[in-house]
């Protein structure tokens, strides 16, 4: 297998990392809704925390995207 093919396969595999971020983001918003339905009056005050948790979780998916982009465009073929 030549290096170009390996880089493309690696980029595809790196995107699997987004699966974890997707599950994490789903858990965050699902649990937020769960809590918000139980106590709707407290929900608006937690919006900032919700977005912060979402952003930090999403960062890990972004790192895998970055690896994919590095493999596609930066690794010499």
């Amino acid at each position, binding site marked *: 297998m030549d290096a170009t093919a390996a880089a493309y396969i690696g980029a595809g595999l790196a995107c699997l990392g987004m699966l974890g971020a997707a599950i994490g983001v789903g858990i965050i918003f699902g649990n937020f809704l769960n809590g918000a339905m139980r106590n709707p009056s407290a929900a608006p005050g937690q919006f900032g925390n919700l*977005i912060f948790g979402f*952003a930090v979780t999403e960062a890990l998916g972004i790192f895998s995207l*970055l690896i994919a982009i590095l493999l596609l465009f930066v690794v010499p073929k």
Partner: protein
Amino acid sequence: MANDPIHQFHIEPMLEFSVAGYDASFTNASLAMVGGAVLAALFFNWAMKPAAMVPGRAQVVAEGAYGFIHGMLKDAAGTEGVKKFLPFVFTLFLFIFMSNMLGMFPGVFGIHHIFTPTSQIVVTAALALLVFFTVIIVGFAKNGLKFFKLFAPSGVPIYILWFVIIIEVISFFSRPLSHAVRLWANILAGHILLKVFAGFVPALAGLGLVGILGASLPLAMTVALYGLEFLVAFLQAYVFAILTCIYLNDALHPGH
């Protein structure tokens, strides 16, 4: 190729000149950035000109935006943070928000499309590094060497402290990376997605009557995605600003 989804990110120089051998041309990206900043400044000057006790419609928008960022910064970094950093965070938020929103225009005045500056990593990386170095400089200026307490949270048992410090250091230095790439990747992916779906419409409509009927599906999808992208444009500006607030809070109160 007209349907090329990447073509929208091409930088075209409008006014070519160079400074000390470096290409410093005024490009369509520069135009979009200057346009966003000038529009925001003009709007706020115009909206706050009456400075009425009972605000008009424009003044409500301007005051609402101000109060929104004020509340966010106060929640994250306290009164001290508001005193020091409100102009900085408000400017960052407005600049990113205007860049994202202007980029949503498909095209005006014969211009093929309006460039989205935040779809270039060099722009978002510059903004993220600005925040990163502001945190470091303010942190050391205000706390001196106590700023290193940021890496050693209080109350951690001593035998896992070394491990926590390693994790904290890595997370501190990966902040500008994720800060920049989050905004960039979201805007880039969104704009490519829009153009790909929009490209399905003429491709299907070229197939005759059945194709024209079928083309209504990707057309409706494009409209729906456009709505979603407006949400993303706001949300990413908001996320960038709230993360800036949280990072600035670390500079002011590093002891967790």
